[in-house]
């Protein structure tokens, strides 16, 4: 796969220096990416302290494997994959093997979350919590592509490169993931209408 077209920027130079072991260059890079990673981690963990720990683990893991970054995707996309995998690891072996929550469980969980959430956003906090909950309930391979495509804003080619799969597989997984999400949404809407 060809490297993503990136202009000769300070970022690229910093990546090169960091790959050669320059901790200061890595620090400058992470200053730029940390706010985005932290915001995504808060969505994953739903807890600020856990999110901070997750970002720290992600940055340390990124430093250790930075030499493997080949520039075939944006650095943020690569970091986002590490963030997702560190989160999966942090959940533990048992939690990863728990069955996906049912629509009723998702709805109940979403109600608990929205009572604490602010209602000021253009996009309703209730709808937002519900959407994140059903994305979390997807099988890992579908969840990964949905998050990379929409939340990390990665192209299909970048998503494929970051996950080490073909573009065709990314398209297929996206299609199935959206179909599943749609099915879950419909079921949740039905449950909500029955409640009211």
């Amino acid at each position, binding site marked *: 796969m060809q490297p993503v077209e990136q202009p000769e920027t300070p970022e690229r130079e910093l990546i090169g220096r960091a790959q050669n*072991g320059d*901790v200061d260059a*890595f*620090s400058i890079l*992470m*200053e730029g990416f*940390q*706010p*985005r990673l*932290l*915001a*995504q981690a*808060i*969505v994953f963990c739903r807890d600020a302290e856990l999110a*901070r720990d997750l*970002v*720290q683990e992600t*940055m*340390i893991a990124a*430093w250790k494997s930075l030499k493997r970054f080949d520039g075939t995707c944006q650095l943020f996309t690569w970091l986002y994959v590490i963030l997702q995998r560190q989160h999966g690891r942090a959940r533990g072996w048992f939690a990863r093997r728990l069955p996906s929550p049912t629509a009723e469980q998702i709805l109940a969980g979403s109600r608990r979350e929205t009572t604490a959430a602010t209602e000021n*956003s*253009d*996009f309703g906090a209730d*709808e*937002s919590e519900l*959407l*994140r909950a059903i*994305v979390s309930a997807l099988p890992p391979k579908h969840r990964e592509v*949905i998050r990379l495509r*929409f*939340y990390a*804003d990665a192209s299909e080619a970048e998503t494929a490169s970051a996950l080490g799969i073909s573009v065709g597989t990314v398209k297929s997984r996206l299609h199935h993931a*959206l*179909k599943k*999400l*749609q099915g879950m*949404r419909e079921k949740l809407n039905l449950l909500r209408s029955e409640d009211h």
Partner: protein
Amino acid sequence: MKDDNQDLARLLHNDAKSVRELEAFDSRLHQDTMREISLGEAGVNRERWFTWSPLNVSVTAAMAVMACVWVLRPGQPPAQPGAHPGPEIALVVDPAPGSSLAYRQALAEGEDALLAMLDRDGRSILPRSVDAFQSDH
């Protein structure tokens, strides 16, 4: 179905936008993380004499296997603890000169051998100045 997917994609994009509103730089987190990385680097440099790379592990395992094969190679008697190779026991004993066993052995070889032994022993026992077999008489 395609419209439904587009609607869902729009919702996901909107949610992603709302996540971006949460972005804020956490300087303490950054400092803590960079300190961890720097400490880790210092530790790695100290302990770099052996790293658990697949190559190192394979080479070490191969050397261990070769050592085992060498020790247990076929045709080697099993090692017996405590058995030291001492001096071989002499099965044929030379009798001491002048002893009865020496004379008996000499007699068994013949009368000449016995006389030669008596002559030799007589010379070694008597002082050199004395010619035992040359009489002054």
